């Protein structure tokens, strides 16, 4: 799965704003409904939302979508591609958040909206 980070970063930012606007409970309720209705497009996006729901609820909700390959955070990917520098990727891997790892994302930090 190749990741368009422009789109993915925008999506994760959108999700961060939705959490800020709705609060955790309403977010989980709304997005569980959207998932059931197949109203979120894209395997990556569905996996990210499922990971976020697991993260917020602090449990494995049995949501199954997973990226085909591990998806790195933008900076980890950028420095590997740009400089063959694995420092950020290694850090993210060692500190990966379990809820996201379960769905294929190697992220050590969850984006929050301002």
């Amino acid at each position, binding site marked *: 799965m190749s990741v368009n980070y422009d789109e993915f*970063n*925008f999506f994760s930012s959108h999700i961060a704003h939705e959490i800020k606007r709705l609060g955790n409970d309403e977010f989980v309720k709304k997005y569980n409904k959207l998932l059931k209705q197949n*109203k979120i497009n894209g395997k990556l996006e569905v996996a990210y939302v499922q990971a976020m729901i697991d993260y917020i609820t602090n449990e494995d909700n049995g949501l199954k979508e997973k990226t085909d390959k591990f998806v790195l955070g933008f*900076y980890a990917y950028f420095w590997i591609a740009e400089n063959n520098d694995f420092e950020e990727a290694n850090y993210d891997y060692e500190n990966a958040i379990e809820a996201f790892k379960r769905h294929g994302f190697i992220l050590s930090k969850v984006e929050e909206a*301002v």
Partner: protein
Amino acid sequence: MPHSTNVPYLNKKNIDKYLNELSLEILRRGVGTTEILVVGGSAIALNHRFGRATVDIDICVQQQNRLYECIIAVAEKEQINEDWMNADVMHSLSFSYQLFNGAMPYRTFNNVLSVYTVNDLDLVCMKLKAMRPKDGTDILKLAPILKNNRITKEDIMIRIEQLYCTRFLEARAIKMLNTTFR
């Protein structure tokens, strides 16, 4: 955007439309002349042709007057989120009152709403402070423009010091600066 939910995204076209609606609301309510400084993704959308979209318009204001009630009135009329325009960024680490000094006039709507945008150098400084994933992709797009205008890494550090009274940046931000402005 291929992904979707029921939240409309903002781009140059509809930002102009909503700003115009806001100015009409300001007129209708007799709020008086209002100035706003647009920062973040909306500033990129208004000033560049990257096709940048955003989920909200981040603004900085020196005086609020009754701006918020006008923002909410536009939200109700246009059926968009009440926080479609907000000044939350003023509570973040990337905000500085010095940003007003570098503001660039964008447009005045109906003689009552003067809209300014943050300049590209200040925007990169803000993004180096924030360093969310989307800030990284924005820095990559803005860096060639700054370099074309002969802005150097040192110029950025000087401006960061002016904005935040310190040259401190987190390690990842320094790495990003070194990579993009080498």
